[in-house]
């Protein structure tokens, strides 16, 4: 029933509607300082916007960026991103096709084509947002509409979960701010001053839009990463920076240093809720019970598949997110959850739980964990008392984020497992082996 043809026609209908509604702000635009050109596949620049700042102006003959022509509007601290919000599909680890709402990353593409590029583009999880402390983050959100639910006119937002000293203007909560309607774009601005592990999600009709999949990883690298090699990492510290070393926080003593970082976001779907949404049925809020537990948008063994999963298909094998301008569909699960390190390396796990239903506990079998932060703060008391602790399990409520260092020094190479000890969630619905599990592959 979910043939390409059906999808294409509803998509076309939507485009038509959006095109026709024209008037108010219907042309999506982005607000990225220094973005004056679109970079084409061959590297040449043409006038326009793609939500990527242009450091150099084009050479008048080659149209390639010319390092002798710096863009006066370019500021190195500016980071831009252009997200679309809409609907789409994913396949669960047992193959079950799942309708979803979600984000996709349109950065680097012509912003005037945001509608067609974003349509049916929902990804799970949402594109990971990686920021550097000190950046000014300009985020534009374009609502591309719900191609499979033309009856819905839902606005969308981005909520930067945990952003400190926030302003409601950019907090992405529809009840006390604004949200963006179909065919339009909303800017967000964040002055990024606190490193740590955050998360992001849509906050419109939060229970529904989050259950439907509008969830993603978001973290901020510490300024201490940019310390001078051989010099103390902060004034008064006896810990000297080693070139290339990175730190979860500005710890001043190197205790949060790591070699490998992996964000692992826990989430889970209730397929009955998704199916009800797909089929325009009343949504079962009170009966919500998740049956597809996942890490980074996948159930095991998809979690350890380092590839991009194929474009989603329905039960008949037909592409579900194809449309007239994109007949081959589009992959919607791009992020895996495999952790790979070499013996001796320190692995930073940026753990978060964005389930809308359940607390989850995760265990790493055979490797020690040290909790070094939570809530996007280093685990220190108000006067600096060290509150780190060793553990083999981390429990997280929905909305909690925890930073863990796994020190592999002296450990035996091999495959270790990270999995939930809420053991009934080690399954992909009725497929009773999978779910919320991934692997830490330790190489010699």
């Amino acid at each position, binding site marked *: 029933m979910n043939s390409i043809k059906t999808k294409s026609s509803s998509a076309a209908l939507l485009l038509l509607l959006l095109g026709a509604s024209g008037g108010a702000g219907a042309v999506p635009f982005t607000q990225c300082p220094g973005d004056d050109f679109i970079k084409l596949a061959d590297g040449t620049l043409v006038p326009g916007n793609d939500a990527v700042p242009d450091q150099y102006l084009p050479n008048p003959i080659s149209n390639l960026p010319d390092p002798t022509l710096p863009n006066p509007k370019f500021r190195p601290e500016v980071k831009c991103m252009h997200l679309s919000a809409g609907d789409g599909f994913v396949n669960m680890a047992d193959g079950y096709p799942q309708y979803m709402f979600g984000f996709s990353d349109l950065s680097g593409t012509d912003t005037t084509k945001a509608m067609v590029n974003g349509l049916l583009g929902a990804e799970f999880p949402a594109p990971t947002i990686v920021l550097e402390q000190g950046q000014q983050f300009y985020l534009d959100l374009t609502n591309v509409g719900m191609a499979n639910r033309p009856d819905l006119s839902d606005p969308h937002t981005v909520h930067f979960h945990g952003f400190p000293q926030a302003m409601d203007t950019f907090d992405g909560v529809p009840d006390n701010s604004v949200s963006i309607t179909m065919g339009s774009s909303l800017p967000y601005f964040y002055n990024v001053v606190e490193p740590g592990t955050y998360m992001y999600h849509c906050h419109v009709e939060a*229970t529904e839009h989050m259950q439907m999949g509008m969830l993603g990883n978001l973290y901020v690298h510490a300024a201490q990463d940019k310390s001078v090699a051989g010099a103390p990492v902060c004034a008064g510290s006896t810990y000297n920076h080693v070139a290339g070393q990175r730190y979860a926080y500005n710890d001043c003593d190197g205790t949060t240093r790591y070699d490998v970082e992996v964000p692992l976001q826990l989430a889970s779907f209730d397929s009955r809720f998704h199916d009800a949404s797909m089929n325009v049925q009343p949504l079962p809020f009170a009966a919500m019970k998740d049956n597809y537990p996942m890490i980074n948008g996948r159930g095991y063994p998809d979690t350890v598949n380092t590839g991009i999963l194929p474009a989603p298909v329905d039960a008949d094998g037909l592409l579900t997110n194809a449309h007239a301008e994109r007949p081959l569909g589009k992959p919607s699960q791009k992020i895996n959850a495999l952790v790979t390190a070499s013996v001796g390396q320190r692995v930073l796990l940026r753990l978060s739980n964005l389930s809308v239903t359940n607390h989850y506990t995760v265990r790493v079998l055979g490797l020690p964990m040290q909790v070094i932060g939570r809530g996007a703060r280093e685990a220190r008391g108000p006067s600096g008392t060290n509150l780190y602790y060793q553990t083999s399990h981390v429990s997280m*409520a*929905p909305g909690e984020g925890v930073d863990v260092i796994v020190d592999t020094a002296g450990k035996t190479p091999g495959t270790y497992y990270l999995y939930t000890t809420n053991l009934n969630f080690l399954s992909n619905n009725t497929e009773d082996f999978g779910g919320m599990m991934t692997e830490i592959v330790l190489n010699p």
Partner: protein
Amino acid sequence: MKSLFARAALATTTAVMLFAGVAINAEARIAGTSGTVVGTTQTFNLVTSADYITTPDGGTVTIWGYGEVGKPMQYPGPTLKVRAGYTVVINLTNGLPNLPGTSAPMPVSMIFPGQTGVAATGGSAGVLTQESSGPANVVTYTFVAGQPGTYMYNSGTRPGLQVEMGLVGALIVYPATENPNAPTKAYDLADSAFDQEYMFLMTEMDPKIHQLVEFGLINQVNNTVSHATLWFLNGRNGPDTMFPDFAPWLNHQPYSALPRMHPGEKLLMRVIGGGREQHPFHTHGNNYTVIARDGRPLKSSASTTIDLGYSDYTLDSTPGTTQDAIFTWTGVNLGWDMFGHVPGDGSSCTPDAEGLHSVATDANYKEPCADHTKPLPVVMPENASLAFGGFWRGSPFIGSLGSLPPGEGGLNLNGGVVFIWHSHTEKELANNDLYPGGILTMLIIEPHGVLIP
């Protein structure tokens, strides 16, 4: 959704007007009762009874609640505000209806987790404590309020059923040096000082259990298969949480859960897990610092400060426990002027030691001076592209009200900065199948000069 928030809208507007209209309101910020105070003894006369509460999805639910004798029974029970070192005397009687086919109600009682030396006299012996078996059967609980902190009380009789039915409340012990009606700190520690104080008691209900009780089928209640579909903050489901204390149409749900503060102030959150499930309470706007658990400051034994406190953005409340946290907000490091000042507009910013504007009589008191007159880095879209929240000011700036289409906004009359505070188990943001609701409220950061009682 619209209609539910419209209802809250009306109420909050009323609340704001009530707050703003009264010149000086001596009422303490956490509503509750200090009982009858004679010398250093505080006496409370409580009675349990059955009645109905209303839920915002249009339902009514039979509950059992504690109430002060002569006042409506309530959910949660009266917040008992006592002073450390005082003797607390609670006389409890049982006004529940008789069990079907018998001439007596199910016995009830009270237990006080975290208190020691509780003496229970009268009534009849139960498993955990003495119980009251009827209107004339008085149980008296007596204890000396121990260390300051946030505590709870609940029925010690068949608590799996009776707490579900509503027999739960808060007990707050203020430091001996503090006036419970105008407190300034939570503990005998300088870093537990606060400017505003609010309670967040989280519970849940499975309406099916309440129907069985209402229909006289208590023996069919099976707690092991209970499935909560109603989620409460201070005994109310969102958006009722934003109505004022003692809103007359919520006769048995007297407690508001609408925190308000000014920029730079410290807001004490007394978070109580009153039910039987965990609820992760997420504070939009900023991290808080947890300063105490179960009425004990997070400090090492030799320390005179809360040296083991920690910062976080989601506070996981577990059943039967309490946590105290301090939240503050200045909007520092936004990178733009939150007031929308422009050079030459006559405004000024004179930084104090923290870099915040120091002239208390100015509207921009506590403004982060480093961002003074910095322009908003982006252009907000035109109104026709936007959907609006009822609390939206119509302006990106604090204290200013922008133009909005007819029927939009209207809940934020002072132009405060508003953040939603809610359970991040988002399925708890519904009342049965209706979103929004449940454990949900708003923090309003009012501009300086706006009176917060």
